Protein backbone atom coordinates (compact mmCIF):
# COMPACT_ATOMS: atom_id res chain seq x y z
CA UNK A 1 0.00 0.00 0.00
CA UNK A 2 1.29 3.41 -0.99
CA UNK A 3 2.04 5.58 2.05
CA UNK A 4 0.88 8.70 0.23
CA UNK A 5 -2.50 8.22 1.91
CA UNK A 6 -0.94 9.47 5.17
CA UNK A 7 -0.34 12.95 3.76
CA UNK A 8 -3.71 13.03 1.99
CA UNK A 9 -5.43 11.80 5.12
CA UNK A 10 -3.74 14.34 7.39
CA UNK A 11 -4.79 17.15 5.04
CA UNK A 12 -8.41 16.03 4.79
CA UNK A 13 -8.31 15.39 8.51
CA UNK A 14 -7.15 18.96 9.17
CA UNK A 15 -10.07 20.37 7.20
CA UNK A 16 -12.57 18.08 8.91
CA UNK A 17 -11.02 18.69 12.33
CA UNK A 18 -11.05 22.48 12.06
CA UNK A 19 -14.70 22.34 11.05
CA UNK A 20 -15.55 19.82 13.75
CA UNK A 21 -14.23 22.16 16.47
CA UNK A 22 -17.05 24.55 15.61
CA UNK A 23 -19.62 21.74 15.51
CA UNK A 24 -18.54 20.33 18.85
CA UNK A 25 -18.46 23.75 20.57
CA UNK A 26 -21.91 24.68 19.24
CA UNK A 27 -23.26 21.34 20.36
CA UNK A 28 -21.79 21.42 23.84
CA UNK A 29 -22.46 25.09 24.63
CA UNK A 30 -25.65 25.86 22.67
CA UNK A 31 -26.87 22.25 22.77
CA UNK A 32 -27.89 21.72 19.18
CA UNK A 33 -26.28 20.18 16.12
CA UNK A 34 -25.85 22.98 13.63
CA UNK A 35 -26.53 21.76 10.11
CA UNK A 36 -25.59 25.20 8.76
CA UNK A 37 -21.97 24.90 9.90
CA UNK A 38 -20.81 23.53 6.55
CA UNK A 39 -22.35 26.52 4.84
CA UNK A 40 -20.42 28.87 7.12
CA UNK A 41 -17.40 27.14 5.63
CA UNK A 42 -18.50 27.82 2.06
CA UNK A 43 -19.50 31.41 2.82
CA UNK A 44 -16.14 32.07 4.51
CA UNK A 45 -14.32 30.71 1.49
CA UNK A 46 -16.27 32.82 -0.97
CA UNK A 47 -15.79 35.87 1.28
CA UNK A 48 -12.04 35.21 1.23
CA UNK A 49 -12.10 34.76 -2.54
CA UNK A 50 -13.91 38.07 -2.93
CA UNK A 51 -11.41 39.79 -0.64
CA UNK A 52 -8.51 38.33 -2.63
CA UNK A 53 -9.90 39.66 -5.90
CA UNK A 54 -10.58 43.05 -4.28
CA UNK A 55 -6.97 43.24 -3.09
CA UNK A 56 -5.82 42.11 -6.52
CA UNK A 57 -7.87 44.90 -8.11
CA UNK A 58 -6.37 47.48 -5.75
CA UNK A 59 -2.70 46.51 -5.77
CA UNK A 60 -2.30 44.70 -9.06
CA UNK A 61 -0.66 41.33 -9.39
CA UNK A 62 1.39 40.30 -6.38
CA UNK A 63 4.03 37.60 -6.51
CA UNK A 64 3.44 34.55 -4.31
CA UNK A 65 5.65 33.95 -1.27
CA UNK A 66 8.58 31.65 -2.08
CA UNK A 67 7.42 28.29 -3.44
CA UNK A 68 3.81 28.76 -2.28
CA UNK A 69 0.89 29.27 -4.62
CA UNK A 70 -0.37 32.34 -2.75
CA UNK A 71 1.04 35.66 -1.52
CA UNK A 72 0.18 38.06 1.29
CA UNK A 73 -3.19 39.06 -0.24
CA UNK A 74 -4.59 35.64 0.60
CA UNK A 75 -3.33 35.85 4.17
CA UNK A 76 -4.96 39.24 4.63
CA UNK A 77 -8.10 37.98 2.90
CA UNK A 78 -8.35 34.96 5.21
CA UNK A 79 -8.32 37.25 8.24
CA UNK A 80 -11.09 39.32 6.64
CA UNK A 81 -12.97 36.12 5.74
CA UNK A 82 -12.65 34.79 9.30
CA UNK A 83 -14.07 38.01 10.72
CA UNK A 84 -16.87 37.95 8.15
CA UNK A 85 -17.82 34.33 8.86
CA UNK A 86 -17.74 34.84 12.63
CA UNK A 87 -19.97 37.89 12.34
CA UNK A 88 -22.29 36.07 9.94
CA UNK A 89 -22.68 33.24 12.46
CA UNK A 90 -23.40 35.82 15.16
CA UNK A 91 -25.99 37.52 12.99
CA UNK A 92 -27.73 34.25 12.15
CA UNK A 93 -27.81 33.44 15.85
CA UNK A 94 -29.31 36.82 16.66
CA UNK A 95 -32.10 36.74 14.08
CA UNK A 96 -32.89 33.02 14.20
CA UNK A 97 -31.28 30.61 16.65
CA UNK A 98 -31.34 32.81 19.77
CA UNK A 99 -35.06 33.47 19.41
CA UNK A 100 -35.87 29.79 18.98
CA UNK A 101 -33.54 28.89 21.87
CA UNK A 102 -35.44 31.34 24.04
CA UNK A 103 -38.56 29.26 23.42
CA UNK A 104 -36.71 26.26 24.81
CA UNK A 105 -37.24 23.87 21.91
CA UNK A 106 -33.90 22.27 21.13
CA UNK A 107 -34.94 20.23 18.14
CA UNK A 108 -36.74 23.16 16.48
CA UNK A 109 -33.37 24.95 16.47
CA UNK A 110 -31.86 21.97 14.64
CA UNK A 111 -34.62 22.18 12.06
CA UNK A 112 -34.12 25.91 11.65
CA UNK A 113 -30.41 25.32 11.09
CA UNK A 114 -31.37 22.83 8.37
CA UNK A 115 -33.59 25.41 6.67
CA UNK A 116 -30.95 28.12 7.07
CA UNK A 117 -28.32 25.82 5.58
CA UNK A 118 -30.46 25.23 2.49
CA UNK A 119 -31.11 28.95 2.07
CA UNK A 120 -27.47 29.95 2.61
CA UNK A 121 -26.19 27.37 0.15
CA UNK A 122 -28.66 28.28 -2.56
CA UNK A 123 -27.92 31.96 -2.07
CA UNK A 124 -24.25 31.19 -2.76
CA UNK A 125 -25.28 29.31 -5.89
CA UNK A 126 -27.30 32.30 -6.96
CA UNK A 127 -24.50 34.82 -6.41
CA UNK A 128 -21.50 32.83 -7.63
CA UNK A 129 -23.22 30.12 -9.75
CA UNK A 130 -22.32 26.47 -9.14
CA UNK A 131 -19.25 26.63 -11.38
CA UNK A 132 -16.10 25.79 -9.36
CA UNK A 133 -13.68 28.63 -8.56
CA UNK A 134 -9.99 28.56 -7.58
CA UNK A 135 -7.63 30.71 -5.56
CA UNK A 136 -4.81 29.96 -7.95
CA UNK A 137 -4.55 28.09 -11.19
CA UNK A 138 -0.83 27.44 -10.93
CA UNK A 139 0.25 23.84 -10.50
CA UNK A 140 2.66 22.99 -7.71
CA UNK A 141 5.30 20.34 -8.07
CA UNK A 142 5.11 17.83 -5.23
CA UNK A 143 8.46 17.08 -3.58
CA UNK A 144 9.30 13.47 -2.76
CA UNK A 145 10.11 13.02 0.94
CA UNK A 146 10.86 9.31 0.92
CA UNK A 147 8.76 6.13 1.39
CA UNK A 148 6.89 7.03 -1.79
CA UNK A 149 5.35 10.10 -0.16
CA UNK A 150 5.12 13.39 -2.02
CA UNK A 151 4.07 16.72 -0.60
CA UNK A 152 3.71 20.26 -1.98
CA UNK A 153 4.93 23.41 -0.19
CA UNK A 154 1.30 24.58 0.22
CA UNK A 155 0.43 21.36 1.98
CA UNK A 156 3.33 21.65 4.43
CA UNK A 157 2.41 25.23 5.33
CA UNK A 158 -1.27 24.39 5.75
CA UNK A 159 -0.54 21.40 8.00
CA UNK A 160 1.72 23.56 10.19
CA UNK A 161 -0.92 26.29 10.30
CA UNK A 162 -3.60 23.81 11.36
CA UNK A 163 -1.39 22.55 14.19
CA UNK A 164 -0.77 26.13 15.33
CA UNK A 165 -4.48 27.03 15.19
CA UNK A 166 -5.51 23.95 17.14
CA UNK A 167 -2.87 24.70 19.77
CA UNK A 168 -4.19 28.28 20.05
CA UNK A 169 -7.80 27.13 20.47
CA UNK A 170 -6.73 24.55 23.03
CA UNK A 171 -4.82 27.17 25.03
CA UNK A 172 -7.77 29.54 24.75
CA UNK A 173 -10.13 26.88 26.09
CA UNK A 174 -7.92 25.79 28.99
CA UNK A 175 -5.79 28.79 29.98
CA UNK A 176 -8.00 31.86 29.62
CA UNK A 177 -10.94 33.17 31.60
CA UNK A 178 -13.34 33.06 28.63
CA UNK A 179 -12.27 29.51 27.79
CA UNK A 180 -12.97 28.35 31.30
CA UNK A 181 -16.31 30.17 31.19
CA UNK A 182 -17.14 28.28 28.00
CA UNK A 183 -16.35 24.98 29.66
CA UNK A 184 -18.48 25.96 32.64
CA UNK A 185 -21.47 26.81 30.44
CA UNK A 186 -21.11 23.57 28.54
CA UNK A 187 -21.09 21.60 31.79
CA UNK A 188 -23.93 23.37 33.56
CA UNK A 189 -25.52 26.50 32.08
CA UNK A 190 -27.72 27.23 35.09
CA UNK A 191 -24.90 26.96 37.58
CA UNK A 192 -22.61 29.00 35.32
CA UNK A 193 -25.16 31.79 35.31
CA UNK A 194 -25.47 31.63 39.09
CA UNK A 195 -21.74 32.16 39.62
CA UNK A 196 -21.88 35.25 37.44
CA UNK A 197 -20.60 34.04 34.07
CA UNK A 198 -21.81 36.19 31.20
CA UNK A 199 -23.55 33.47 29.19
CA UNK A 200 -24.41 35.81 26.32
CA UNK A 201 -20.71 36.60 25.91
CA UNK A 202 -19.83 32.91 25.95
CA UNK A 203 -22.39 32.31 23.19
CA UNK A 204 -20.92 35.15 21.12
CA UNK A 205 -17.38 33.86 21.49
CA UNK A 206 -18.54 30.34 20.56
CA UNK A 207 -20.02 31.57 17.28
CA UNK A 208 -16.99 33.73 16.50
CA UNK A 209 -14.52 30.88 17.05
CA UNK A 210 -16.67 28.36 15.20
CA UNK A 211 -17.23 30.68 12.25
CA UNK A 212 -13.58 31.73 11.99
CA UNK A 213 -12.31 28.14 12.07
CA UNK A 214 -14.92 27.08 9.53
CA UNK A 215 -13.61 29.82 7.24
CA UNK A 216 -10.01 28.57 7.60
CA UNK A 217 -11.07 25.00 6.87
CA UNK A 218 -12.98 26.19 3.81
CA UNK A 219 -10.02 28.19 2.51
CA UNK A 220 -7.84 25.09 2.93
CA UNK A 221 -10.27 23.16 0.75
CA UNK A 222 -10.24 26.09 -1.66
CA UNK A 223 -6.44 26.07 -1.93
CA UNK A 224 -6.01 22.32 -2.17
CA UNK A 225 -9.16 21.25 -4.04
CA UNK A 226 -11.64 23.79 -5.36
CA UNK A 227 -14.32 26.25 -4.27
CA UNK A 228 -17.95 25.24 -4.82
CA UNK A 229 -21.19 26.31 -3.12
CA UNK A 230 -21.70 22.67 -2.07
CA UNK A 231 -18.22 22.28 -0.55
CA UNK A 232 -19.40 22.91 3.00
CA UNK A 233 -22.47 20.72 2.76
CA UNK A 234 -20.33 17.80 1.61
CA UNK A 235 -18.17 18.25 4.73
CA UNK A 236 -21.15 18.10 7.08
CA UNK A 237 -21.23 14.34 7.62
CA UNK A 238 -17.44 13.99 8.19
CA UNK A 239 -17.57 16.92 10.62
CA UNK A 240 -20.45 15.45 12.63
CA UNK A 241 -18.78 12.06 12.64
CA UNK A 242 -15.50 13.62 13.83
CA UNK A 243 -17.20 15.60 16.59
CA UNK A 244 -19.05 12.52 17.86
CA UNK A 245 -16.02 10.26 17.49
CA UNK A 246 -13.89 12.69 19.49
CA UNK A 247 -16.57 13.17 22.12
CA UNK A 248 -18.96 16.12 22.09
CA UNK A 249 -17.42 19.21 23.69
CA UNK A 250 -13.79 18.13 23.40
CA UNK A 251 -11.61 20.29 21.13
CA UNK A 252 -8.66 17.85 20.99
CA UNK A 253 -11.21 15.08 20.44
CA UNK A 254 -12.75 16.85 17.46
CA UNK A 255 -9.33 17.32 15.86
CA UNK A 256 -8.26 13.75 16.55
CA UNK A 257 -11.61 12.54 15.24
CA UNK A 258 -11.10 14.62 12.12
CA UNK A 259 -7.64 13.14 11.56
CA UNK A 260 -8.93 9.59 12.03
CA UNK A 261 -11.71 10.23 9.54
CA UNK A 262 -9.33 11.87 7.09
CA UNK A 263 -6.88 8.96 7.26
CA UNK A 264 -9.69 6.41 6.96
CA UNK A 265 -11.08 8.22 3.91
CA UNK A 266 -7.69 8.40 2.24
CA UNK A 267 -7.08 4.73 3.00
CA UNK A 268 -10.48 3.78 1.63
CA UNK A 269 -9.80 5.73 -1.56
CA UNK A 270 -6.73 3.52 -2.13
CA UNK A 271 -8.34 0.23 -1.13
CA UNK A 272 -11.95 0.50 -2.31
CA UNK A 273 -12.09 3.42 -4.71
CA UNK A 274 -12.67 7.16 -4.57
CA UNK A 275 -16.40 6.94 -5.29
CA UNK A 276 -17.14 5.38 -1.88
CA UNK A 277 -15.19 7.98 0.06
CA UNK A 278 -18.26 9.69 1.53
CA UNK A 279 -19.50 6.42 3.05
CA UNK A 280 -16.45 6.16 5.33
CA UNK A 281 -17.70 8.83 7.73
CA UNK A 282 -21.05 7.10 7.94
CA UNK A 283 -19.51 3.74 8.77
CA UNK A 284 -17.32 5.32 11.46
CA UNK A 285 -20.31 7.27 12.82
CA UNK A 286 -22.44 4.13 13.10
CA UNK A 287 -19.60 2.21 14.72
CA UNK A 288 -19.11 4.94 17.34
CA UNK A 289 -22.84 5.20 18.05
CA UNK A 290 -23.12 1.45 18.50
CA UNK A 291 -19.93 0.85 20.50
CA UNK A 292 -19.14 4.01 22.43
CA UNK A 293 -21.71 6.78 21.87
CA UNK A 294 -19.88 9.24 24.14
CA UNK A 295 -16.85 9.15 21.88
CA UNK A 296 -13.15 8.97 22.66
CA UNK A 297 -12.87 11.89 25.11
CA UNK A 298 -16.54 12.40 25.86
CA UNK A 299 -18.13 12.68 29.22
CA UNK A 300 -21.57 11.38 30.05
CA UNK A 301 -24.43 13.79 29.64
CA UNK A 302 -25.17 15.55 32.89
Amino acid at each position, binding site marked *: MNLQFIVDGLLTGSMVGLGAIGVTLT*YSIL*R*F*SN*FAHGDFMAWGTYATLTAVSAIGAMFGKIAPIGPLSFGWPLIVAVVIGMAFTGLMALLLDKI*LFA*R*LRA*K*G*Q*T*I*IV*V*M*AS*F*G*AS*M*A*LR*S*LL*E*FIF*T*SRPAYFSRSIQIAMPVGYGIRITPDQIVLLLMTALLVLCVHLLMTRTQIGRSMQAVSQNPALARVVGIDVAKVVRVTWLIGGALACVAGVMIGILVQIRPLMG*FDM*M*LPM*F*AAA*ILGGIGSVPGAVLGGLIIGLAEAGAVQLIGA*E*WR*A*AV*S*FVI*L*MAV*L*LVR*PIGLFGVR*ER
Partner: protein
Amino acid sequence: MMDIVGYGAFFLTTALIFSLITLGLNLQWGLTGLFNVGLAGFVAIGAYTSALLTTPDTVGRLGGFDMPIVIGWLGAMLVTGLAAALTGVATLRLKSDYLAITTFGVAVVVQLVALNAQKLTGGPFGIGFIPRPFAGLAETPVLFNFSNLAVVAGVTLVTYLALEHLSRSPWGRVLKALREDERAAISLGKSARFYRVQAFAVGGAIMGLAGAVQAHFIGFIAPDNYVPTLTFQVWTMLIVGGSGSNKGAILGSVLVWAIWAGSGALTSAAFPTDQQARAASLQIVAIGVMLCVILLVRPNGILGTSPRRPRWFGRKQPPAVSDQNGAAS
Protein backbone atom coordinates in the same frame (compact mmCIF):
# COMPACT_ATOMS: atom_id res chain seq x y z
CA MET B 1 -59.26 23.88 -21.70
CA MET B 2 -58.50 20.17 -21.66
CA ASP B 3 -54.82 21.06 -21.26
CA ILE B 4 -55.52 22.99 -18.09
CA VAL B 5 -57.65 20.18 -16.68
CA GLY B 6 -54.93 17.71 -17.58
CA TYR B 7 -52.31 19.85 -15.92
CA GLY B 8 -54.53 20.20 -12.88
CA ALA B 9 -54.70 16.42 -12.58
CA PHE B 10 -50.95 16.14 -13.03
CA PHE B 11 -50.32 18.84 -10.43
CA LEU B 12 -52.63 17.22 -7.88
CA THR B 13 -51.07 13.80 -8.45
CA THR B 14 -47.60 15.17 -7.75
CA ALA B 15 -48.83 17.12 -4.73
CA LEU B 16 -50.60 14.06 -3.32
CA ILE B 17 -47.44 11.96 -3.69
CA PHE B 18 -45.65 14.64 -1.67
CA SER B 19 -48.44 14.50 0.87
CA LEU B 20 -47.86 10.75 1.24
CA ILE B 21 -44.22 11.45 2.19
CA THR B 22 -45.39 14.21 4.51
CA LEU B 23 -47.85 11.83 6.18
CA GLY B 24 -44.96 9.45 6.86
CA LEU B 25 -42.91 12.29 8.30
CA ASN B 26 -45.87 13.39 10.39
CA LEU B 27 -46.01 9.97 12.02
CA GLN B 28 -42.29 10.18 12.80
CA TRP B 29 -42.06 13.81 13.83
CA GLY B 30 -45.57 15.10 14.44
CA LEU B 31 -46.80 12.18 16.49
CA THR B 32 -43.60 10.72 17.93
CA GLY B 33 -41.09 13.58 17.83
CA LEU B 34 -38.43 11.72 15.83
CA PHE B 35 -36.29 13.99 13.70
CA ASN B 36 -35.60 12.64 10.21
CA VAL B 37 -33.45 14.82 7.93
CA GLY B 38 -32.66 11.98 5.56
CA LEU B 39 -36.13 11.21 4.31
CA ALA B 40 -35.01 11.62 0.71
CA GLY B 41 -32.90 8.51 1.30
CA PHE B 42 -35.88 6.49 2.50
CA VAL B 43 -38.02 7.67 -0.42
CA ALA B 44 -35.20 6.58 -2.74
CA ILE B 45 -35.00 3.13 -1.14
CA GLY B 46 -38.71 2.63 -1.82
CA ALA B 47 -38.48 3.88 -5.39
CA TYR B 48 -35.50 1.70 -6.27
CA THR B 49 -36.94 -1.38 -4.58
CA SER B 50 -40.18 -1.15 -6.50
CA ALA B 51 -38.35 -0.39 -9.74
CA LEU B 52 -36.12 -3.46 -9.31
CA LEU B 53 -39.09 -5.70 -8.59
CA THR B 54 -41.32 -4.60 -11.44
CA THR B 55 -39.10 -3.68 -14.41
CA PRO B 56 -38.53 -6.29 -17.12
CA ASP B 57 -35.25 -8.21 -17.03
CA THR B 58 -32.35 -5.88 -17.88
CA VAL B 59 -28.86 -6.77 -19.05
CA GLY B 60 -26.05 -5.54 -16.77
CA ARG B 61 -28.28 -4.87 -13.80
CA LEU B 62 -29.65 -7.03 -11.03
CA GLY B 63 -33.22 -8.10 -11.67
CA GLY B 64 -35.84 -6.65 -13.39
CA PHE B 65 -38.06 -9.29 -11.85
CA ASP B 66 -41.09 -8.27 -13.91
CA MET B 67 -43.53 -8.56 -11.03
CA PRO B 68 -46.93 -6.86 -10.70
CA ILE B 69 -46.90 -3.23 -9.55
CA VAL B 70 -48.68 -4.05 -6.29
CA ILE B 71 -45.88 -6.45 -5.32
CA GLY B 72 -43.40 -3.69 -6.08
CA TRP B 73 -45.24 -1.30 -3.76
CA LEU B 74 -45.50 -3.81 -0.94
CA GLY B 75 -41.83 -4.69 -1.37
CA ALA B 76 -40.94 -1.01 -1.25
CA MET B 77 -42.82 -0.60 2.04
CA LEU B 78 -41.19 -3.69 3.52
CA VAL B 79 -37.60 -2.83 2.57
CA THR B 80 -37.88 0.85 3.51
CA GLY B 81 -39.59 -0.03 6.78
CA LEU B 82 -36.74 -2.43 7.58
CA ALA B 83 -34.13 0.20 6.74
CA ALA B 84 -35.89 2.70 8.99
CA ALA B 85 -36.19 0.13 11.78
CA LEU B 86 -32.45 -0.57 11.61
CA THR B 87 -31.68 3.16 11.76
CA GLY B 88 -34.00 3.46 14.72
CA VAL B 89 -32.57 0.51 16.62
CA ALA B 90 -29.06 1.91 16.23
CA THR B 91 -29.82 5.47 17.36
CA LEU B 92 -33.05 5.74 19.32
CA ARG B 93 -31.43 4.87 22.63
CA LEU B 94 -29.26 7.98 22.23
CA LYS B 95 -29.94 11.70 22.18
CA SER B 96 -32.38 13.02 19.61
CA ASP B 97 -29.68 14.89 17.68
CA TYR B 98 -27.87 11.64 16.96
CA LEU B 99 -30.90 10.32 15.11
CA ALA B 100 -30.91 13.49 13.02
CA ILE B 101 -27.23 13.12 12.16
CA THR B 102 -27.64 9.42 11.37
CA THR B 103 -30.60 9.94 9.05
CA PHE B 104 -28.59 12.67 7.34
CA GLY B 105 -25.87 10.07 6.84
CA VAL B 106 -28.37 7.50 5.54
CA ALA B 107 -29.41 9.94 2.83
CA VAL B 108 -25.78 10.52 1.85
CA VAL B 109 -25.06 6.79 1.66
CA VAL B 110 -28.24 6.00 -0.30
CA GLN B 111 -27.32 8.73 -2.77
CA LEU B 112 -23.84 7.22 -3.03
CA VAL B 113 -25.18 3.72 -3.64
CA ALA B 114 -27.65 5.02 -6.22
CA LEU B 115 -24.81 6.74 -8.06
CA ASN B 116 -22.12 4.07 -7.83
CA ALA B 117 -23.65 0.62 -7.52
CA GLN B 118 -24.35 0.35 -11.24
CA LYS B 119 -25.25 -3.33 -11.02
CA LEU B 120 -28.05 -2.56 -8.58
CA THR B 121 -29.30 0.91 -9.40
CA GLY B 122 -28.21 1.70 -12.93
CA GLY B 123 -25.80 4.39 -11.68
CA PRO B 124 -26.22 8.06 -12.61
CA PHE B 125 -28.58 7.22 -15.49
CA GLY B 126 -31.05 5.59 -13.16
CA ILE B 127 -33.71 3.07 -14.10
CA GLY B 128 -36.14 3.53 -16.94
CA PHE B 129 -39.12 1.57 -18.31
CA ILE B 130 -40.77 1.31 -14.91
CA PRO B 131 -44.27 0.02 -15.66
CA ARG B 132 -46.94 2.67 -15.29
CA PRO B 133 -50.43 1.87 -14.15
CA PHE B 134 -52.96 2.29 -17.00
CA ALA B 135 -50.20 2.46 -19.61
CA GLY B 136 -52.88 1.36 -22.10
CA LEU B 137 -54.63 4.69 -21.69
CA ALA B 138 -51.54 6.72 -22.59
CA GLU B 139 -53.04 7.72 -25.95
CA THR B 140 -55.73 9.78 -24.25
CA PRO B 141 -53.72 11.94 -21.87
CA VAL B 142 -56.67 13.32 -19.92
CA LEU B 143 -58.06 9.89 -19.11
CA PHE B 144 -54.54 8.68 -18.28
CA ASN B 145 -53.88 11.61 -15.96
CA PHE B 146 -57.18 11.18 -14.18
CA SER B 147 -56.83 7.44 -13.68
CA ASN B 148 -53.38 8.05 -12.20
CA LEU B 149 -54.80 10.76 -9.99
CA ALA B 150 -57.50 8.36 -8.84
CA VAL B 151 -54.94 5.71 -7.89
CA VAL B 152 -52.69 8.16 -6.04
CA ALA B 153 -55.66 9.78 -4.32
CA GLY B 154 -56.90 6.35 -3.30
CA VAL B 155 -53.51 5.38 -1.81
CA THR B 156 -53.31 8.72 0.00
CA LEU B 157 -56.85 8.35 1.38
CA VAL B 158 -56.20 4.82 2.63
CA THR B 159 -52.93 5.94 4.26
CA TYR B 160 -54.65 8.93 5.81
CA LEU B 161 -57.49 6.84 7.24
CA ALA B 162 -55.06 4.22 8.52
CA LEU B 163 -52.94 6.88 10.22
CA GLU B 164 -55.98 8.55 11.75
CA HIS B 165 -57.07 5.19 13.09
CA LEU B 166 -53.57 4.46 14.36
CA SER B 167 -53.24 7.76 16.18
CA ARG B 168 -56.52 7.08 18.01
CA SER B 169 -55.66 3.47 18.76
CA PRO B 170 -53.92 2.43 22.00
CA TRP B 171 -50.69 2.34 20.02
CA GLY B 172 -51.04 5.97 18.97
CA ARG B 173 -51.93 6.97 22.50
CA VAL B 174 -48.72 5.42 23.79
CA LEU B 175 -46.73 7.41 21.20
CA LYS B 176 -48.45 10.61 22.26
CA ALA B 177 -47.89 9.80 25.90
CA LEU B 178 -44.19 9.24 25.22
CA ARG B 179 -44.01 12.53 23.39
CA GLU B 180 -45.76 14.46 26.11
CA ASP B 181 -44.21 12.93 29.19
CA GLU B 182 -41.72 10.17 28.65
CA ARG B 183 -41.12 9.43 32.31
CA ALA B 184 -44.80 8.97 33.07
CA ALA B 185 -45.27 6.69 30.08
CA ILE B 186 -42.27 4.55 31.03
CA SER B 187 -43.53 4.28 34.58
CA LEU B 188 -46.69 2.71 33.14
CA GLY B 189 -44.52 -0.01 31.66
CA LYS B 190 -44.24 1.18 28.06
CA SER B 191 -40.86 0.67 26.42
CA ALA B 192 -40.03 4.05 24.91
CA ARG B 193 -37.42 2.75 22.53
CA PHE B 194 -39.53 -0.13 21.20
CA TYR B 195 -42.51 2.10 20.41
CA ARG B 196 -40.30 4.74 18.81
CA VAL B 197 -38.60 2.17 16.57
CA GLN B 198 -42.05 0.98 15.47
CA ALA B 199 -43.23 4.48 14.68
CA PHE B 200 -40.04 5.27 12.81
CA ALA B 201 -40.32 2.06 10.79
CA VAL B 202 -43.97 2.61 9.87
CA GLY B 203 -43.24 6.22 8.91
CA GLY B 204 -40.33 4.98 6.80
CA ALA B 205 -42.54 2.39 5.12
CA ILE B 206 -45.00 5.13 4.11
CA MET B 207 -42.14 7.18 2.67
CA GLY B 208 -40.97 4.12 0.75
CA LEU B 209 -44.48 3.61 -0.60
CA ALA B 210 -44.55 7.25 -1.71
CA GLY B 211 -41.23 6.79 -3.50
CA ALA B 212 -42.57 3.69 -5.26
CA VAL B 213 -45.82 5.39 -6.28
CA GLN B 214 -43.86 8.32 -7.69
CA ALA B 215 -41.47 6.03 -9.57
CA HIS B 216 -44.40 4.29 -11.28
CA PHE B 217 -46.15 7.57 -11.97
CA ILE B 218 -43.12 9.06 -13.76
CA GLY B 219 -41.79 5.78 -15.17
CA PHE B 220 -38.16 6.73 -14.64
CA ILE B 221 -35.93 7.29 -11.60
CA ALA B 222 -32.43 8.68 -11.18
CA PRO B 223 -30.29 9.63 -8.16
CA ASP B 224 -30.96 13.32 -8.86
CA ASN B 225 -34.58 12.91 -7.73
CA TYR B 226 -33.51 12.21 -4.17
CA VAL B 227 -31.25 15.13 -3.24
CA PRO B 228 -31.54 17.02 0.07
CA THR B 229 -33.86 19.52 -1.60
CA LEU B 230 -36.59 16.87 -1.42
CA THR B 231 -36.10 16.42 2.32
CA PHE B 232 -36.25 20.14 2.73
CA GLN B 233 -39.44 20.54 0.66
CA VAL B 234 -41.24 17.87 2.65
CA TRP B 235 -40.19 19.39 5.97
CA THR B 236 -41.49 22.76 4.83
CA MET B 237 -44.76 21.12 3.81
CA LEU B 238 -45.21 19.54 7.21
CA ILE B 239 -44.30 22.69 9.14
CA VAL B 240 -46.55 24.88 6.99
CA GLY B 241 -49.48 22.48 7.31
CA GLY B 242 -48.89 21.98 11.00
CA SER B 243 -46.98 19.05 12.46
CA GLY B 244 -49.09 16.61 14.39
CA SER B 245 -52.07 16.91 12.08
CA ASN B 246 -52.58 14.50 9.19
CA LYS B 247 -54.96 16.90 7.49
CA GLY B 248 -52.35 19.61 7.92
CA ALA B 249 -49.74 17.37 6.30
CA ILE B 250 -51.90 16.99 3.17
CA LEU B 251 -52.94 20.63 3.10
CA GLY B 252 -49.35 21.83 3.59
CA SER B 253 -48.12 19.57 0.79
CA VAL B 254 -50.63 20.87 -1.74
CA LEU B 255 -50.04 24.47 -0.66
CA VAL B 256 -46.23 24.37 -0.69
CA TRP B 257 -46.18 22.42 -3.95
CA ALA B 258 -48.46 25.07 -5.47
CA ILE B 259 -46.07 27.80 -4.29
CA TRP B 260 -43.09 25.81 -5.55
CA ALA B 261 -44.57 25.03 -8.98
CA GLY B 262 -45.96 28.56 -9.30
CA SER B 263 -42.67 30.26 -8.46
CA GLY B 264 -40.91 27.82 -10.78
CA ALA B 265 -43.18 28.82 -13.65
CA LEU B 266 -42.67 32.47 -12.74
CA THR B 267 -38.87 32.26 -12.73
CA SER B 268 -38.79 30.36 -16.01
CA ALA B 269 -40.94 33.06 -17.56
CA ALA B 270 -39.04 35.97 -16.01
CA PHE B 271 -35.43 34.88 -16.47
CA PRO B 272 -33.56 34.16 -19.71
CA THR B 273 -32.64 30.52 -20.33
CA ASP B 274 -28.98 30.82 -19.32
CA GLN B 275 -29.93 32.32 -15.97
CA GLN B 276 -32.55 29.72 -15.05
CA ALA B 277 -30.29 27.57 -12.90
CA ARG B 278 -29.47 30.64 -10.84
CA ALA B 279 -33.10 31.63 -10.58
CA ALA B 280 -33.98 28.13 -9.41
CA SER B 281 -31.56 28.49 -6.50
CA LEU B 282 -33.32 31.71 -5.53
CA GLN B 283 -36.51 29.67 -5.31
CA ILE B 284 -34.89 27.44 -2.68
CA VAL B 285 -33.66 30.49 -0.77
CA ALA B 286 -37.22 31.80 -0.62
CA ILE B 287 -38.59 28.49 0.66
CA GLY B 288 -35.77 28.24 3.23
CA VAL B 289 -36.51 31.70 4.55
CA MET B 290 -40.20 30.81 4.64
CA LEU B 291 -39.47 27.72 6.75
CA CYS B 292 -37.43 29.74 9.25
CA VAL B 293 -40.04 32.51 9.44
CA ILE B 294 -42.83 30.02 10.11
CA LEU B 295 -40.74 28.36 12.81
CA LEU B 296 -40.27 31.78 14.41
CA VAL B 297 -43.74 33.23 13.98
CA ARG B 298 -46.17 30.34 13.86
CA PRO B 299 -44.45 27.11 14.87
CA ASN B 300 -47.80 25.26 14.88
CA GLY B 301 -48.38 25.81 11.18
CA ILE B 302 -51.91 26.09 9.87
CA LEU B 303 -53.50 23.08 11.55
CA GLY B 304 -50.86 21.93 14.03
CA THR B 305 -51.22 20.89 17.64
CA SER B 306 -49.35 22.30 20.61
CA PRO B 307 -45.64 23.00 20.04
CA ARG B 308 -43.27 20.24 20.89
CA ARG B 309 -41.10 20.43 23.92
CA PRO B 310 -37.57 19.07 24.09
CA ARG B 311 -37.44 15.38 24.77
CA TRP B 312 -34.78 13.21 26.30
CA PHE B 313 -32.67 15.99 27.73
CA GLY B 314 -32.46 19.60 28.77
CA ARG B 315 -36.11 20.15 29.58
CA LYS B 316 -36.29 23.78 30.53
CA GLN B 317 -40.00 24.45 30.54
CA PRO B 318 -42.56 23.10 32.93
CA PRO B 319 -44.68 20.45 31.21
CA ALA B 320 -47.50 22.14 29.36
CA VAL B 321 -51.10 20.99 29.47
CA SER B 322 -51.45 18.00 27.19
CA ASP B 323 -53.44 18.61 24.06
CA GLN B 324 -57.02 17.62 24.60
CA ASN B 325 -58.02 17.23 21.00
CA GLY B 326 -55.48 14.64 20.07
CA ALA B 327 -53.04 14.87 17.22
CA ALA B 328 -55.68 14.35 14.60
CA SER B 329 -57.67 17.50 15.29
